[in-house]
């Protein structure tokens, strides 16, 4: 508690120091405790088991992955791995590991830890790894600083590389081996190699991390520690920022409308960088079991009926971009602008619907659908309100059905009890990680955020399978460009806008948003004005 009070005092004087501090120097100042807002307290905080942004937000400072994303070429910063190389046949991937790294309990980090995590944690238990590492057969450790991943089928090195930041957090083998990993106490009391050590978690109050003096990249980190104050209410987060009780809130924890107001306050900055590596899409998900929606002309008509700029301006208040296909523009390696688009044109939409044999009835209605907006983002709910009106304008009557998150997931991805839905899939740095699954046919019901739309195209399935096995990066990229063209032509789902989150921070905080996954990276470079 003493700590909190000290922070409060420190931040109370902040507005006066602010400009002088910023002008004086860009040299990082060492020391100070950063207080940030946290809005969830995940039950399992181990990123080797749960690869999700809510977990990473806290855990990525304590437990590091093999590599982190970076702006520009080559797109990666080494963390626990110094370098990596895929074999020409795609069946092995060699990692050269950093030497002289110690876990927070003093034991050295070696290739045995990587081998254990890969085979026992990532492949067997991790939400993303269970699918991603399905072909991983063995991990060889010829010496303590080399690990060779062996695959049963060719795995493109580029794909593995792209998965390194999110899927490869390393925890110590000696604390997990021989236990039930899911029940291990170190899923809460984290032990890793990162710049900060885990000190304590007071449920409902805070998480506290402190500097790791033995960090391999010493004298980093700049901060003495990080405190995550648990503030589940978004209004309270905005108020705490204004009052200076916290210095940073990530993941758009403040309502967008409030953000515009906060941005005008002295001493507070809104930062829209640092999330490109976790870009979200707003999509219209379509149930192709409805005969009207199985007609591609109707799907194109729906796309023409939607005005993406309205969604960007009104719902996202400018903090989004109209989407071109399912791969965000940020990822220039894979994104192509050479694909069909469906500009806002209600007249064209009506013509297409007439052509599809769906004329307006006596009451002006062509057909009726049930529309399920995903309840987890305020914006997806508002998108539901908007889409209902947009469809009404072209003669499609939509009835909104709003469920709680679990109910929504079950209705859409298990029971297929919807006609249209508003979804928000994440693009995770490679189309093969969480994007092609939205288009792949023949998946069993119940796989969340996948193609549960009743749409299957053999050409598409073949393309997805081929790309997943293609080792050569340029060939692979070309296959994904073809994937985008088929996706846009057939339009099994409609990507509307792409968006990333925003960070609101005191201008005393520096070293913010210096990589495309900043909020979920290790914050070793972040510092506070004196």
């Amino acid at each position, binding site marked *: 508690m003493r700590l909190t009070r000290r922070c409060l005092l420190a931040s109370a004087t902040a507005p006066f120091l602010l400009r002088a501090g910023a002008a004086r120097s860009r040299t990082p100042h060492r020391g100070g405790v950063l207080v940030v807002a946290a809005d969830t307290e995940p039950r399992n905080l181990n990123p080797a088991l749960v690869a999700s942004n809510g977990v990473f937000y806290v855990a990525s400072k304590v437990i590091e992955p093999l590599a982190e994303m970076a702006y520009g070429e080559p797109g990666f910063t080494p963390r626990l791995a110094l370098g990596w190389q895929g074999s020409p046949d795609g069946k092995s991937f060699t990692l050269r590991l950093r030497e002289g790294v110690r876990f927070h309990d003093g034991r050295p980090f070696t290739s045995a830890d990587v081998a254990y995590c890969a085979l026992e944690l990532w492949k067997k238990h991790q939400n993303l790894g269970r699918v991603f590492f399905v072909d991983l057969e063995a991990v060889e450790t010829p010496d303590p600083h080399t690990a060779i991943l062996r695959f049963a089928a060719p795995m493109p090195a580029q794909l593995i590389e792209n998965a390194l930041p999110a899927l490869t957090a390393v925890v110590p083998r000696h604390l997990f081996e021989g236990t039930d990993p899911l029940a291990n106490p170190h899923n809460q009391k984290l032990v890793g190699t990162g710049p900060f050590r885990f000190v304590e978690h007071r449920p409902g109050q805070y998480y506290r991390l402190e500097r790791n003096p033995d960090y391999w990249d010493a004298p980093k980190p700049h901060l003495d520690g990080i405190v995550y104050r648990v503030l589940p209410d978004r*209004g309270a987060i905005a108020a705490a920022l204004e009052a200076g009780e916290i210095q940073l809130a990530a993941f758009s924890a403040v309502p967008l409308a409030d953000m515009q107001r906060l941005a005008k306050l002295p001493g507070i900055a809104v930062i829209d960088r640092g999330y490109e590596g976790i870009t979200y899409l707003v999509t219209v998900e379509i149930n192709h079991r409805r005969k009207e929606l199985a007609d591609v002309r109707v799907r194109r008509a729906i796309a023409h009926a939607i005005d993406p700029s309205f969604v960007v301006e009104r719902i996202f208040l400018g903090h989004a971009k109209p989407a071109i296909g399912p791969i965000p523009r940020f990822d220039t390696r894979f994104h192509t602008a050479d694909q069909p688009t469906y500009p806002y044109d209600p007249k064209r939409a009506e013509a297409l619907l007439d052509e599809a044999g769906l004329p307006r009835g006596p009451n002006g209605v062509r057909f009726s659908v049930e529309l399920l907006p995903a309840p987890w983002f305020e914006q997806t709910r508002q998108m539901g309100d908007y889409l*209902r*009106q947009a469809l009404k304008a072209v003669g499609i009557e939509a009835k909104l059905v709003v469920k709680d998150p679990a109910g929504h997931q079950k209705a859409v991805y298990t029971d297929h009890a919807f006609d249209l839905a508003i979804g928000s899939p994440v693009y995770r740095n490679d189309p093969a990680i969480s994007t092609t699954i939205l288009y792949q046919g023949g998946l069993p019901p119940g796989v969340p955020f996948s193609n549960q739309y009743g749409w299957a195209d053999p050409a598409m399935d073949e393309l997805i399978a081929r790309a997943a096995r293609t080792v050569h990066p340029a060939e692979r990229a070309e296959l994904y460009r073809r994937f985008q063209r088929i996706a846009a032509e057939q339009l099994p789902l409609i990507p509307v806008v792409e968006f990333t989150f925003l960070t609101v921070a005191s201008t005393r905080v520096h070293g913010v948003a210096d990589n495309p996954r900043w909020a979920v990276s290790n914050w070793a470079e972040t510092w506070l004005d004196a």
Partner: protein
Amino acid sequence: MTDLLVRFARDRAALLAACVVAGLTLAAASAQLLWPLDPEAVGGPPLLRPLVDPAHPLGTDRLGRDVLARLLHGARLSLTVAFAAAGAATVLGSAVGLAAGLAGGRIDELLMRITDAFQTVPGFLLALAFVSVLGPEARSVVLAIAASAWTGPARLVRAEIASLAGRDFVLAAVVAGLPRLDIALRVLLPNALPPVVAFAATNVASAVLIEAALSFLGLADPNRASWGAMIAEGRAVLVSEPWLSILPGLALLLTVLAVNLVGEGLNEALAPRRARP
């Protein structure tokens, strides 16, 4: 009857409140004629303040929807749900109370224990549970509110029946050889009803509040404008654009206050002996 009206009209506050309720009901019923804008149309300029643009006299919300149209259509939902729920609760409660009061003995005991059971659960929680299970539709909201509100009328009617049963005019009816059912419906019920009617008004007021609270929590039909949902949506911009929450809040306040005052007035008018001189 005229007697009753005169007594009611003597209470200025109640008379004014009755006019307000009547006005609200009329406005809600003729929302389309009165203000023909579609409450869901998203076309307008966003976050327009009230009294700036004559096309949107009360301004617009974040998606550019007309606040006046949404308030009027919200009134329609609020009042329909509230009157329907209070009506259903009164009918159901009276029937249970009447049955209990007339039958006595084991049946009375059983019915009253059931009533107790319902009364021990806070009304709002019961409504919350009902709507979570039945889904957020106007019909299930009515049912949910009625399910928690029928206990009051039931106890009231039973007590009235008990106190009326020994009166001379009831005994006279028995002696005259009227069938039991006739005695119940023609003699007992009309005399037991006045306090129930006054109580129904209180029920309407609490139904308006429960409906608003449910829709504030997102448990209302998302296809229709409702005051609670408007307040909830306005919360995101509470600091910069407070009127988006204040206007539906005022509408709610006005409605509940007016309905309560009418109930009070009715109560006074129906029980003149208790009225102040």
